[in-house]
């Protein structure tokens, strides 16, 4: 009798646990994992809105082709936020409630990502690899920090490292910086301020407005100030114009750039004036010899896409997809949002087929990489000239 009661009890407990365990996670079925991506498809950064998800899908399709993750294929839904934070939140709510996505991935832009924080908190849904290098993404004093896993080295760290590099090259260097007067620039300045404190110097700071096309004033001021190293906190157009303007003034400092300037279009646009330009980057180049980059080129060529799409941003989508897939793999067969967060926290010194310097997260660490390589333009070709610098 007692044994029967015991068995019955065991059975009931098992049933209860079984049911609890099998509570369905949104976006996860036996054959599919649905993830949500919010890109800028029709706003100021729309050229990236296509390149990033295309790169991600290259890797997802590759993984799906190999049988998926624990038997589940990855499917990505893309929404358009037009670089409008408000629309980003609306899209996020739509993705969570209507499409029922499992997690967010690669949402582009600092302010859209920042605006998502209350939503992430509300639904307890993780955001993996936001497509921005702002150091604020891994700032633990901000709301909902535990749901954001930032992969890239922050702009502040990069600026810091670049100032160090300048002083390493030349002990008497005078450093200047041209920064965009917005959230991007603010983050760059934060890093500069830290470096100033450490070296006990002042860096000459010149601001420009987002969308500016004339930098004669800023370059002239730097020339007058006698800066020998100029850090450009721009994107693609700004470094080109700055370097050409400086050349026209016969002013030849060493130009250094924050990672968004590491695009090969800068090399193409700046031509011979861009010779010797050194940009920081938080990962290996798409045309380098590491295994991840080789795989990328192979998959890209097999996809039959217009070769113009190939490049840094397309590869960025690809490599962050590797991070997400790694997290999903580690989260195991029984996939939950909390499980993904725990699994991501378990990633330590993981280099993504040689692409990253070694990504580490932890229960109180959301910054993936904290180092950069320097990429120099020599003879019109971008080459890595340093090891990982921290």
């Amino acid at each position: 009798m007692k044994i029967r009661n015991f068995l019955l009890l065991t059975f009931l407990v098992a049933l209860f646990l079984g049911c609890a365990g099998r509570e369905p996670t949104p976006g996860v079925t036996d054959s599919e994992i649905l993830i949500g991506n919010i890109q800028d498809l029709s706003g100021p950064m729309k050229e990236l809105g296509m390149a990033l998800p295309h790169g991600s899908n290259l890797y997802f399709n590759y993984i799906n082709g190999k049988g998926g993750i624990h038997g589940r294929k990855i499917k990505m839904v893309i929404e358009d936020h037009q670089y409008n934070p408000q629309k980003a939140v609306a899209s996020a709510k739509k993705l969570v409630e209507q499409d029922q996505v499992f997690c967010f991935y690669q949402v582009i832009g600092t302010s859209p990502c920042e605006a998502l924080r209350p939503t992430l908190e509300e639904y307890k849904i993780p955001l993996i690899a936001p497509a921005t290098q702002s150091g604020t993404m891994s700032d633990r004093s901000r709301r909902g920090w535990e749901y954001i896993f930032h992969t890239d080295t922050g702009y502040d760290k990069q600026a810091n490292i670049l100032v160090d590099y300048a002083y390493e090259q030349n002990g008497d260097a005078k450093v200047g910086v041209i920064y965009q007067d917005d959230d991007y620039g603010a983050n760059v300045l934060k890093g500069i301020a830290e470096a100033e404190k450490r070296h006990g110097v002042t860096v000459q700071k010149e601001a420009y407005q987002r969308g500016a096309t004339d930098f004669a004033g800023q370059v002239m001021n730097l020339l007058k100030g006698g800066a020998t190293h100029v850090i450009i906190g721009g994107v693609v157009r700004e470094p080109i114009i700055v370097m050409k303007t400086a050349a026209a003034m016969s002013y030849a400092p060493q130009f250094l750039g924050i990672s968004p300037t590491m695009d090969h279009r800068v090399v193409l646009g700046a031509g011979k004036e861009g010779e010797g330009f050194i940009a920081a980057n938080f990962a290996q180049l798409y045309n380098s010899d590491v295994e991840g980059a080789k795989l990328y080129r192979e998959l890209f060529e097999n996809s039959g896409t217009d070769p113009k799409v190939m490049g840094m941003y397309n590869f960025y989508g690809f490599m962050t997809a590797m991070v997400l897939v790694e997290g999903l793999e580690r989260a195991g067969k029984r996939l939950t949002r909390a499980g993904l967060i725990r699994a991501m926290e378990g990633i330590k010194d993981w280099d993504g087929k040689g692409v990253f310097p070694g990504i580490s997260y932890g229960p109180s660490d959301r910054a993936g990489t904290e180092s950069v390589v320097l990429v120099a333009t020599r003879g019109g070709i971008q080459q890595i000239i340093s090891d990982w610098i921290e």
Partner: protein
Amino acid sequence: MKSRYADENLSWIAPLVLLVIAIPFLIRGVTFSYKYYLYVLNIAGIYTILAVGLDILSGYTGLISLGHAGFLAIGAYTSAVLVDQAGVPFGLSLIITPIITGLFGLVVGFPALRISGMYLGLTTMGFGFIARRLIIALRAWTEGSAGLEVSNPVLFGFEFANDWTNYFLIFTFVVAVIVVARRVMNSKIGRAFMAIRDSERAAEAAGVNLTRYKLLAFFMSAVLAGLAGVLFAHTMRFISTDHFDILLSIYFIIMILVGGAGSIYGAVLGSVFIVLLDFLLIPAFKDWMALFVAIEVADIQSLIFGLIMFLFIIFQPMGLYGVWLKIRIYWKLFPFNPKKRFT
């Protein structure tokens, strides 16, 4: 003696309130993703408050403003700083912030005493840019362009923490603003505004103090924008300069034009219509289009907005509210409708 508001029909208030209360329950009954729809409606509600203010300024008084996103931003940031950094209670900020924004309205309104038309449009547009620069410059409080996290609204000890409660908070103000604005516009003030719009000289000859009323129009309009800003900051919970760009100001102009300028109801219809179009209908349309043609560059949004404005200005200059008025007259006269009037 005839009372002051005797010719204003007030019977619509009760059904309006009932409708506003019923809508979230209806949505929740119909769909699981009600929070998403409520979020969109909340945005529509906030913009409605602002559009009513813009209607008072542009529709009633005939002073164009292309800088209302600036007032919204000032309202939002002022309240965020007051509540989160100075420790002012949210309830008090609901009163102080609109007044501060209203004072900004007076400053901007000052040049309006001398200039009008396109020049005023440019001046106010300049104000929109200045407001953004000001926010970036006042880094110590606003964190510059990095954006500011804002706390939840707390009123009488109750915290509005989700879209559901926010809806009731926002729409209480929407209804109040519509009722008050409608009544004020039917009073001496409203008549003075319309007189200024129709002819400044005639108005002045009839004893309307131009300086006073023009400044009052700007003040009232900015107060409402400030109120919208307070609600915006605390219900969106994150504000940045990216929220308040020049396009948003143009968006507000589209709202009152499409809704029908100079009627308050038009501003309400217009803002709800445009927000729903922008957040729900156009994305749905895009998804539907994507089934047939591959649209890589999704620029349909601006195309559709442009087209709508274009069509409304040509065929329905009185906007959505004008359409409604025509329908109403049609029914009243039915079946004796003079055909020509309604084609």
